[in-house]
């Protein structure tokens, strides 16, 4: 290779040193980023192992199926059945997500497809504020507004109209119920789901809408026949995100859900979800043998439910996108 006449031998050597040092920085950065990337994965493993370790006393004492499907919860008598808590968690989450999704999708469609720039500009910050309200405030609001509403209006009304159907019958007319928890949860996850679905609609190219409008389709026909099939995987992802949040929501739910260790049979029955069980009892009554291990086992079960749910959702999503 021809030497550049104005470049001395020294600068050539410097160039070489610089090049090696740049490569070294690159390699170093890559390693650091790799470690930081695997950190959260490692964290899940650490949490799982930690919980497993701390709940081992109870896991080794009772058969796992007895813990999962046992209905009795009498720690002082050494009976630890998590079934009612697991069912309670699932009930409250399903009701919350079920209540949230239809209006959320409609709002997101309205904002993304129909609303003018001004409405959109106004609605977004309001939704952001809704997302920023602390859960405990939702809990207080649920206590003051939702529980009485369920007790005095929705409950009696449901009993009168749908009382023949167990799901809607009122056995425990206090208002502290799966439904109250579900309503509070639904409102809490609403801003999240709306924001995600809205963003997903925005990712669809304008050209695609125009192609449909150009043959004389209405907005709604365009949404139903072109946009919705296109964004369906995204909507499922949004639902999963909302549900994951709902599974773990603790304080707001425990304030309105009644916290009675029973398997709920109606929307108006009280329930006792896993997060509420842990939050209410951890730190108390540690003199009872195995109680500590039982609560950490509850945390383990909650974590496993959420992990399984996310894995399932990923599989569904994969199949959908193909």
């Amino acid at each position, binding site marked *: 290779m021809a030497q550049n006449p104005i470049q001395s031998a020294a600068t050539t050597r410097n160039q070489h040193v610089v090049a090696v040092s740049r490569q070294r920085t690159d390699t170093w950065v890559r390693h650091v980023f790799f470690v930081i990337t695997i950190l959260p994965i490692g964290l899940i493993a650490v949490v799982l192992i930690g919980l497993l370790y701390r709940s081992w006393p109870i896991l080794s004492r009772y058969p796992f199926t007895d813990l999962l499907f046992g209905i009795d919860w009498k720690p002082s008598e050494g009976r630890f059945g998590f079934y009612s808590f697991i069912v309670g968690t699932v009930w409250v989450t399903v009701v919350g997500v079920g209540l949230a999704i239809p209006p959320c999708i409609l709002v997101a469609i309205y904002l993304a497809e129909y609303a*003018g*720039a001004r409405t959109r500009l106004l609605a977004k910050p309001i939704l952001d504020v809704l997302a920023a309200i602390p859960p405990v405030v939702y809990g207080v609001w649920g206590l003051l507004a939702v529980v009485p509403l369920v007790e005095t209006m929705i409950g009696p009304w449901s009993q009168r109209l749908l009382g023949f159907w167990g799901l809607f019958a009122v056995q425990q007319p206090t208002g502290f119920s799966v439904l109250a928890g579900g309503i509070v949860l639904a409102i809490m996850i609403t801003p999240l789901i709306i924001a995600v679905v809205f963003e997903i609609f925005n990712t669809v*190219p304008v*050209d*695609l809408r*125009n*192609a*449909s*409008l*150009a*043959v*004389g*389709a*209405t907005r709604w*026909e365009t949404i139903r*026949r*072109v946009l919705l*099939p*296109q964004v369906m995987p995204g909507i499922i992802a949004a639902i999963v995100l909302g549900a994951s949040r709902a599974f773990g929501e603790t304080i707001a739910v425990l304030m309105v859900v009644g916290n009675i260790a029973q398997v709920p049979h109606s929307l108006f029955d009280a329930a006792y979800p896993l997060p509420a069980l842990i939050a209410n009892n951890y730190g108390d009554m540690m003199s009872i043998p195995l109680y500590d291990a039982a609560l950490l086992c509850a945390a383990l079960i909650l974590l496993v439910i959420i992990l399984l749910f996310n894995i399932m959702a990923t599989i569904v999503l994969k199949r959908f996108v193909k």
Partner: protein
Amino acid sequence: MSAHIDVTNLNVFYGKQQALTNVSIAIPRQQITVIMGPSGCGKTTLLKSFNRFLELTDGTTITGAVQVDGQNIYAGDVDVTAVRKRVGLLAQRPTPLPMSIYDNVCYGMQIHQMRTNKADYAVAVQHYLELAGLWEEVKTRLHEPATSLSIGQQQRLCLARGLAVEPEVILGDEPTSALDPISSQHIEKRLLELKNQYTTVIVTHTLRQAKRLADYVIFMYMGEVVEAGVARELFTNPQQERTRQYLEGVF
């Protein structure tokens, strides 16, 4: 010359910026009209005023009238979907809908409920794919996704989809600018074949394409119509200085 589209005193604003100024122009029936001019001169805006696509952009103000067959399409009681059924649009980039080739052609027909049974739809799909010169290439794979076609084929599919709702007018917004030369030729050939049945309005930025296609030419500059006339005369003997400069490639 009988005008099919009649534009009177059309002014269009995007926010505060004026895109069209006092445009009055008549588009002849069943010929190819080419709108040309430098970029940003308002030619696409004028084109999109014919199928009421301008109002899809927030903050657009439109004054004046656009009459299609004597009916002002901006009148209060006009159904915009009916306008867009009569005035079809071939977009700049091919945009097949995310469904099969067959369903793409059916899409508009189904929305307007133009047939009553499956067999009639199938006949219509073949007919319009033939009109667009695509039938032979896709007849064995009608139920494959439209996105599996090449870009050039996709644009012909879009043409078939547009023709299927039986428009009177075909608008083309630089319909070949995203295509390779062979595919462009295909589209141009189709447009020339169809021009006796449809009023066609094409926006183009290539002078050579304008010369190949145009029966009638509108030359625009800075949001105004500078000159309009029969293609042969306008190309050989422009009346306006700016038209002459444009044809000579000054800008």
